[in-house]
């Protein structure tokens, strides 16, 4: 019990240290520049207290429960024994890694659903759009994007193909899709690329990349172990724009179906 509390206390100190620069900047600009009392100060302070304690508990819990098991799992799933490699292979057949792709996709999806910064952006988007963008719909769209991204990233590590080819092709797709997507979604879609990968996703995904690149013959963890995060930030842009295009299309269809009935 004591060790649990001690480690919680330690996480609290680390979290305070992390958010200290933000507090300094906020207080500094409020006191030096704005020079106006903050509306509802006690409420705001309570909010910051909740954020601090919440983040502390969240990170402590992740490090206690999810990360050790998730990382161990990534190691076991990529271990030569599980993959059926005996060390004599010089190349591998990418079709023999079904469990890896499934793990990559499902862990990408599920960690994104739990990502606090994505929850924040989804709340804001729903508020700004007057409810036209459903928080849950947006988050699922982003999570599907991350799932596709991580699975494709695992495929890239297994095949050893160069990362820039994938990312640059992805950029071209994003730009083409921007042309056709509803204007109101574009900025949000670009943002969703950056917010998907933080507290929950990065440690687990990094363990997967490292495990894969150290065990697949011919891969170097230093060269091939990176890049999964880049995939995870790219594909949500496409799925979020796709989600908006689908919703717009469904709305148009519904409007067309309603027309003859009303006239």
């Amino acid at each position, binding site marked *: 019990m004591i060790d649990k509390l001690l480690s919680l206390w330690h996480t609290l100190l680390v979290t305070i240290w992390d958010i200290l620069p933000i507090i300094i900047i906020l207080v500094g600009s409020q006191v030096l520049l704005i020079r106006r009392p903050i509306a509802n100060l006690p409420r705001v302070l309570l909010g910051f207290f909740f954020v601090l304690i919440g983040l502390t*508990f*969240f990170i402590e819990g992740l490090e206690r429960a999810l990360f050790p098991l998730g990382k161990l799992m990534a190691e076991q799933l990529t271990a030569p024994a599980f993959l059926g490699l005996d060390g004599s292979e010089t190349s591998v057949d990418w079709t023999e890694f079904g469990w890896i792709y499934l793990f990559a996709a499902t862990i990408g*999806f599920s960690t994104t659903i*739990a990502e606090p910064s994505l929850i924040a*952006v989804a709340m804001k988007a729903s508020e*700004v759009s007057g409810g036209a963008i459903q928080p849950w719909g947006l988050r699922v769209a982003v999570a599907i994007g991350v799932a596709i991204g991580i699975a494709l990233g695992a495929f890239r590590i297994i095949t050893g193909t160069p990362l820039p080819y994938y990312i640059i092709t992805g950029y071209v797709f994003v730009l083409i899709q921007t042309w056709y997507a509803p204007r109101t979604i574009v*900025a949000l879609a670009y943002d969703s690329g950056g917010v998907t990968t933080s507290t929950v996703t990065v440690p687990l995904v990094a363990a997967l990349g490292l495990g894969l690149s150290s065990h697949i013959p011919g891969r170097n963890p230093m*060269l091939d172990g*990176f890049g999964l*995060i880049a995939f995870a930030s790219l594909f949500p842009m496409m799925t979020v724009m796709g989600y908006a295009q689908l919703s717009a299309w469904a709305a148009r269809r519904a409007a067309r179906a309603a027309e003859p009935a009303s006239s």
Partner: protein
Amino acid sequence: MKALILQIVVSLFDSFRDLAPIIAVIAFFQLVVLGQPIPNLLDMLWGMFLVLIGLTLFVQGLKLGLFPIGESLAWDFAAKGSLIWLLIFAFALGFGTTVAEPALIAVANEAANVAAVGGWISDEPAAREDYAYGLRITVALSVGAAIVIGVIRILRGFPIQNLIIIGYIGVVIMTFFAPPEIIGIAYDSGGVTTSTITVPLVAALGVGLASSIEGRNPMIDGFGLIAFASLTPMIFVMGYGALL
């Protein structure tokens, strides 16, 4: 008070729903695919309990603290009409929140290792530390610059895709010049610089600015700050790798 408690109960349920997929995935792979029991079940349950409470409190804190302060700052800056101070604040927010970001520190150390193995810097702890520190400052500067550019975009109402295209072209050009070893780290660095507290604050700031300026649509113009903050580090990390 009663309303707050009710809200927290609802929010607790939401958090449970948010965490259920992770639990399901881990349990499935552990029990079915790997065919092993869950180790330290009691410790796991304690951890899950902490995650659940933590997420719930964080979401409540967003609504009570981070969102209101981000928006009220945006309104106050707009009312004050001082562009310079707004840009200085934007830069400080981007730089200050990034330079101490633990994920960035990890990435910078990793890049220093690559550089030492690649032989661009001497393989000594001091040389590595210098390299990692320089990289961190570079990325933090680039995020500060990104937030400044993003704020100017909101004020002027430029279409976001024009700036993003320029950024993409920058990434592609730098990819040709950067040493191949650094590319993976550089591409990943875009995703890790924006932390859990920066994102809500920056989102509220952008939306608040766009709502307080006439002729700007918060949906079209308010978002996009985070997109810039995840694009510029890629360019700067590759630039740093190419120059040093």
